[in-house]
């Protein structure tokens, strides 16, 4: 196993899938000549050529719409949205088209499509460029929404997404690209829709995903020094949502904190907490806590932005409150 960055892991998955299957191609803004604004597709244009690494105009609706159309003909497009904030410019095609066509036409239409999108705050990009709107997309049946938090999962899940028969929104976090981890070489697949226990512990269950896995792990490290053992469940996939490991862990610890980067209202934490209450009410020893972004559009100023984003201390505080 090699220790590589999240960026390399994603890049590797794309590269291997394109080598394996000629139906796989990439389209998006600056994916070709530029090499991807986050350098994920660096070198792809020279190797695979302009037919398979297609630079598009700035036209998100057309990018997703055309990807849907191409997928309907049997191709396996990987559409890149430069950031997830631009998904709103393609909202109809994502939620009204991609998420509906298979069902609405009685299963006739199959669209094996992957939409890669970079999300997350913390880089002073201001209100329109810093969002974590994952929960919005997870609201729609018909769409699969995944957001890996480790390089290995990123590689394995992107491969699974490309081979999936369904439209998958694959959410990457801009501040995780440099994160390193052990990643199996070659054909490594992590099935979509499977949560996993990332760290074992017996006092409290922290449910999280994506960037917040990093924050939660740091919190767990500090808590461990005080003798508090937190178990961390990484959701990895928001839809379908696999509650198995969450419930299993909760039945052991009887206490949970859910950590997400997006806003709390109507968010991932709201969903997970309700499901715990619905499915494991008898095991509840303390009210479940949610840690999430302050309910404001993210400001540019660094201090204010960091105030609004969930921090390690927020997770520690919430854990202590449920203990």
């Amino acid at each position, binding site marked *: 196993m090699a220790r590589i960055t999240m960026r390399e892991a994603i890049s590797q998955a794309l590269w291997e899938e394109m080598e394996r299957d000629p139906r796989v191609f990439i389209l998006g803004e600056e994916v070709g000549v530029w090499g991807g*604004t986050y350098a994920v597709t660096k070198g792809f244009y020279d190797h695979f050529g302009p037919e398979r690494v297609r630079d598009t105009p*700035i036209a998100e609706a057309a990018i997703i719409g055309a990807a849907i159309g191409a997928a309907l003909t049997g191709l396996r497009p990987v559409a890149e949205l430069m950031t997830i904030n631009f998904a709103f410019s393609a909202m109809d095609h994502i939620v009204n088209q991609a998420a509906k066509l298979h069902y609405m036409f009685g299963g006739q239409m199959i669209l094996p499509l992957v939409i890669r999108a970079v999300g997350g705050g913390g880089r002073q990009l*201001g209100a329109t460029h810093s969002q974590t709107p994952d929960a919005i997309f997870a609201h729609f049946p018909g769409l699969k929404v995944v957001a890996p938090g480790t390089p290995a999962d990123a590689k394995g899940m992107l491969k699974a997404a490309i081979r999936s028969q369904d439209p998958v929104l694959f959410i990457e976090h801009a501040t995780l690209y440099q994160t390193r981890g052990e990643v199996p070489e070659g054909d490594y697949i992590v099935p979509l829709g499977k949560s996993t226990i990332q760290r074992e512990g017996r006092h409290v269950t922290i449910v999280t995903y994506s960037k917040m896995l990093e924050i939660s792990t740091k919190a767990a490290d500090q808590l461990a020094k005080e003798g508090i053992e937190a178990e961390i469940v990484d959701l990895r996939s928001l839809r379908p949502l696999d509650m198995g490991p969450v419930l299993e862990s909760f039945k052991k610890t009887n206490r949970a904190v859910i950590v997400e980067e997006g806003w709390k209202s109507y968010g991932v934490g709201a969903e997970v907490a309700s499901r715990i209450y619905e499915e494991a009410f008898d095991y509840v020893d303390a009210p479940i806590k949610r840690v999430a972004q302050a309910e*404001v559009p993210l400001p540019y100023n660094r*201090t204010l932005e960091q105030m609004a984003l969930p921090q390690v201390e927020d997770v520690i505080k919430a854990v202590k409150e449920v203990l």
Partner: protein
Amino acid sequence: MEKRDYLDLYHQMVVIRRLEERSAELYQQGKIGGFLHLYIGQEAVSTGLISVRRPEDRIITAYRDHGVAINCGLSAREVMAELLGKATGCSRGKGGSMHLADVKKNFWGGHAIVGAHLPIAAGLALGDVYQNNQAVTVCMFGDGATNIGYFHEALNLSKVWNLPVLWVCENNQYGMGTAVERASAVSEIRRKADGYGMKSEAVDGMDVMKVREVSARLYEEIRNGSGPQFLEVITYRFRGHSMGDPERYRSSEEVKTWLENDPIGIYHRYLLENDIASEEELQQQIQMAEEEVNDAVAFAEASPEPPAEELFKHIYVEG
């Protein structure tokens, strides 16, 4: 035009240039965060365009907005303070480089979602028509923005409703790393207005006097009820798309050729050759601009951070 006016245009362009150069330094020092899109090379566009607007005319643009802000009359101080995220910035430190605005000066902002401000511009103009204001809305955007649906919806609507909008495409040859002809079905961008039955023209954006002249005429026509018009301004951004652009998509020879058309240099020569100003007077303007920007940086650095309660302010209108 009085001599004063000529010198003022020169002054504005030099302030913008210096402000951008200093911003780049401050970005490298980590004092400016986020994205920083410099206007260097395009100074003549907004300077000429905005020099003939009336106070009631509305200006709206994309994220490459520092120069536009200066031309709209924002002080270098409040622009620089915003870039540093300070409480004294025009958006109180909450907007940053891409989101400068001063509504009192009829500058309706920098907007960071490509093309999203075009329909908003149509709405500003609609508001004026509705309320019988004799104002023109000037909407600036890049060549890349003409490929997104918003552009087409807004142009069509403005024509259908005969709105007083001057659509100004700053064709700087690239949208990020994508050359116009790689992304746009027609590379003569003004032709896109044809599809909406809209009158259009093109102008050399490196020549502030030419931009000013054509703008003055178009404002007048629109004010007199011509309906929306389209102006393509041919220009070039001398720096990368934003800080950290590896610029693999263009050759240094190409950049060099354009650098010879420096809008400030062109105007400088124009003023000398037409005996409007002496070299000494221009040097004096450069000196003044330098001091103004130094003062702005000092002001911004000394300004306070926004207080913590600012985080929860302005989510909704208070009261």
